Structure formats: C-alpha cells, structure tokens
C-alpha cells in the first residue's frame, strides 16, 4: 500500500476508529493501535485542561471531560501548533450549556488570556508623551493583543474567584450589558469588565476612528455635559492599562 493510503487509513482510525489500517499492521494490531488511539485523545484532553483551567474548575472533572471529549470527536486538530487547539471550544460549550451562558463566557476568557500571553509585542505610550497631540485629528493605536466580547453573566467574578481558589459566586445574569476586554501588559495577560459605552468606542478605535469621533459617540450615549469627563476617564484608564501604543495625527 502506498504511503498516502496508509496515512489516510491511520488518520481515519484516529478520528473515527475506522479499521482499514488493521490489515497493514504487523502482528496483533489491536493493542498497538490502541496506544495511538488513546494518545491522540489524551493529548488533546490535556491541552484543553491546560488552556481552559477555569472552565475545568467550574464544570468539575466529569462535566469538563464530557465537554472536552465532545469537542475532540467533532474537531480534529488542523493546525501545526497544539496551541491553536481549543479556538472553538467556547462555541461547543455554548451548544452544550445553552442555559448556562457563563460556561462559554468563561471559556472565551480562558482562551483570550492564553492568546494574549504569547501575542505580538508592543510598547505602550507613556501619558507624558501625549502633550503635543492634536486631539481633533488624533487616532489611537491599540495593543495587538486586545480582544473584546459582550457578556451576559458574572463570568468575570467567577473567573477571578476560581483563579484565587476561593468559592465562586453563583452564576447570575448581568442587569446591564457589559463586555470583557482582554489584553497583555508587559508579560502578563489582563482582563477587565467594561460597560457598553467603553466597548463601543474601543471597537471604534480598533477600526481606526478618530478620537474626535469617539468623543462624539460618547456624547451620543451619555449626558452630553458629562461626555468630556467620561472621555477623559476612559483615555486615562486606557493609558493606565497600557492599551495605547501610539497616537497618530492624520
């Protein structure tokens, strides 16, 4: 049998247990193929446990392993790096736990923090470097590790409690829409829960909107008299968090 056919048969065995490969194996194939069949799944399970540590803690061993095995059976890895495995796990969890939205939101947070960990480097600007900016034409450039997602539950509080090995709060729906922003400062990934105004204007900044347009959007979403104060507070927070890597005048 040609190598390509052998490898297709082995792939099919690993993914689905197809037994065409058995005829190609010297001697008793069953215990030998079992080593590979087991190792394939065990490694992917370990990878998911490592990446989704808080989801694992939240669901417990049995619940997490069932979800992970469901993901493994439906998502054969396609990337050369094991680090990319798990990119759709939160979607699988969303389907498995439609009434427990905190599960998928915890998974998104675990995944995004992992992505931020070894994402592209960038140096944040210091607040003192912004003295000569023409703010009417300024455009904020944000760290490349920044990710955001709307949330509907107290997943942030749950994640924090789990990471501190303390008793997590019960899952609860949020009264107002919120978002999580995830980024890396120095070598440490961070996250923060933000309101819908900050989420909206940060997405505008990611799309290259000017700071003037951001201020206008803030004014449209808050009492106009408070808009400069809100914009100033947001800018100060972004600088403090190391989100801004450049301010360009265009």
């Amino acid at each position, binding site marked *: 049998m040609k*190598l*390509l056919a052998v490898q297709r048969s082995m*792939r099919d065995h690993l993914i689905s247990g197809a037994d065409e490969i058995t005829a190609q*194996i010297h001697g008793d194939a069953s215990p030998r193929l079992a*080593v590979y069949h087991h190792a394939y799944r065990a*490694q992917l399970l370990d990878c998911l446990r490592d990446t989704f540590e808080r989801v694992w803690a939240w669901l417990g061993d049995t619940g997490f392993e069932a979800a992970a095995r469901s993901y493994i059976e439906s998502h054969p890895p396609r990337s050369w*790096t094991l680090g990319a495995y798990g990119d759709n796990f939160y979607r699988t969890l969303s389907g498995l736990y439609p009434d427990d939205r905190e599960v998928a939101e915890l998974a998104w947070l675990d995944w995004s923090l992992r992505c931020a*960990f070894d994402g592209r480097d960038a140096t944040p600007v210091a607040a003192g470097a912004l003295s000569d900016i023409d703010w009417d034409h300024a455009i904020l450039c944000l760290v490349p590790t920044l990710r955001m997602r709307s949330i509907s539950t107290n997943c942030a509080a749950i994640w924090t409690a789990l990471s501190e090995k303390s008793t997590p709060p019960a899952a609860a729906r949020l009264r107002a829409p919120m978002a999580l922003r995830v980024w890396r400062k120095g070598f440490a990934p961070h996250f923060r829960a933000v309101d819908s105004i900050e989420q909206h204007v940060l997405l505008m900044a990611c799309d290259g909107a000017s700071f003037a347009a951001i201020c206008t959007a803030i004014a449209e979403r808050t009492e106009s008299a408070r808009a400069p104060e809100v914009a100033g507070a947001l800018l100060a927070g972004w600088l403090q968090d190391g989100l801004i890597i450049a301010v360009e005048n265009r």
Partner: protein
Amino acid sequence: MPGTTVASFTGFGLGLRTPHYQEFLGGDVSVDFVEVISENFMVQGGRPLNVLAAVRERYPVAMHGVSMSIGSADGVKLDYLIRLKALADRVQPLWVSDHLCWTGIEGFNSHDLLPLPYTEDAMRIVCANILLAQDVLERPLLLENPSTYMSFADDEMSEWAFLSEMCRRTGCYLLLDVNNIYVSASNHGFDPLAYLAGVPTERVRQMHLAGHSANGRGLLIDTHDHPVSDPVWSLYQAACARFTGVATMIERDDDIPPLSDLLAELDLARALAAAWQRAA
C-alpha cells in the same frame, strides 16, 4: 544550501522546561547546552521569546521540533518551515532537529509522532521532504529515531537501514534517542545493539536519554515521565563506545522533578561517557 554540515558539539544538556525557567535565567546551571521545543517558541511575542533570548545569551541552544511531519505523503508545510526558519535565524542554534515520523495529512494534525512504513515509497517521500526543509532552513536537519508501538506488514527494511539510507540520500544527520531504541526494540523484538551497529557513526550529532513506562499490555511507552532506566543506561554505554563527538541530553516532559535531580542524571551520563573516552 549555505550550510551543508553540522559541526560536532560534545556536551551535556537538558531541556528548557517552564518549571526551571528561573534557574536557567540565573545562568549558573551546569549544562553545556539547552534544548528547546521549537514550537513552544514559534509564537508572536510575550514571555516565551523573552525567556529564550535571555537563555540564549547564557547557553548554546539546540532546537528540537515535533511538528515538521517529515514523513507526510502530502509534503512538509512551507508556512511551518518559514516560521521555523525565522526562529532559527533568531536563535542561531547548534542545530535544528525533528523526528522521523509523520504527524498529519491533508490538513489533519494528530500532534502525535506516528510511525512510517519502512518502504522505498516512504523513503522517496521522506527524502524529498528533508531536501525541501533543508533548502528552506538553509542548514542540514537532524532527524530523531522515533519510539514506535506498531510496525507495518509492508516493511522492506529495518529502521536503522532506513535511517542510514536517508542520511546518504539527503546529507541529514541523526539525533539518536537511546531510550527510543530500547522501547522500540522491546515492542518489536529486535536487538538494540544491532540497531546501534547499523547506524552510520559519522552522522550522529546528538543522543537523547529519557524514561519510559510499561502499559500493562506488553508494550513499553516513551512517556518521558520517569528517570532513565538501567537498561537504557547500559545501552547508552554501548552507544558511547560507538559514537564520539556527540552531545547528550536528558528529556523530561512530565512529572518534572527539581532541576537538581536532572542534573544528577546528567552527571551520570557524563561519567559513563568519560569512562568510555578513557578506555578508547
């Protein structure tokens, strides 16, 4: 290809693993080189690359990969090779190694080191892939003998004969994993000393030592979660008698002990190698 040879490096090293980062960053760990898993550092940024740069300032580094899939019938992936080349340019390693195996096909990646049939068909594909990889990387590769748990009815030659011919056709070098020889010899019933005798001495640049486990179904598994076993130390002695000017490294990837434990194992490797040098 600018570099067609890999210089010998006689030294004793350990793998750079996360629990030991701080000690290696301190710079006074008594190793001659460190080996890194290439894929762990083929990332965009962050702490891993920072640690690697700092370690590289203190130690020579060997790059050891697990995802090249040199035996894939649909070829090695150019995007992978380009990223690996970028890391090699950054690290300036002693050498770049991977395994004689395949990990995936047609977009699927098992993330396991899967065995190849030792046939002329596989030889042609492996050699074509090695030549392409060496061209892109602009350096010869070291290929490691895998631990295997099955062999193929169509096999036309032994693993060591396959390795020898592969080196002859491509100019690549070998990373000889002594534990893998022992594990595969046990699993397939061949003589590990015959294996050593069949490997071309001039192509071996590095040896790996590691621990293994029995799976309870008659097979040994290359688990890297135990100290090196006595039979593997014995086989290492035989390897030292045959191969000179070779680097030795102890692999530990699970149940990772304190660095001092691994350094003690490395001292044993030094002592065994020195005994054979004195005898030679």
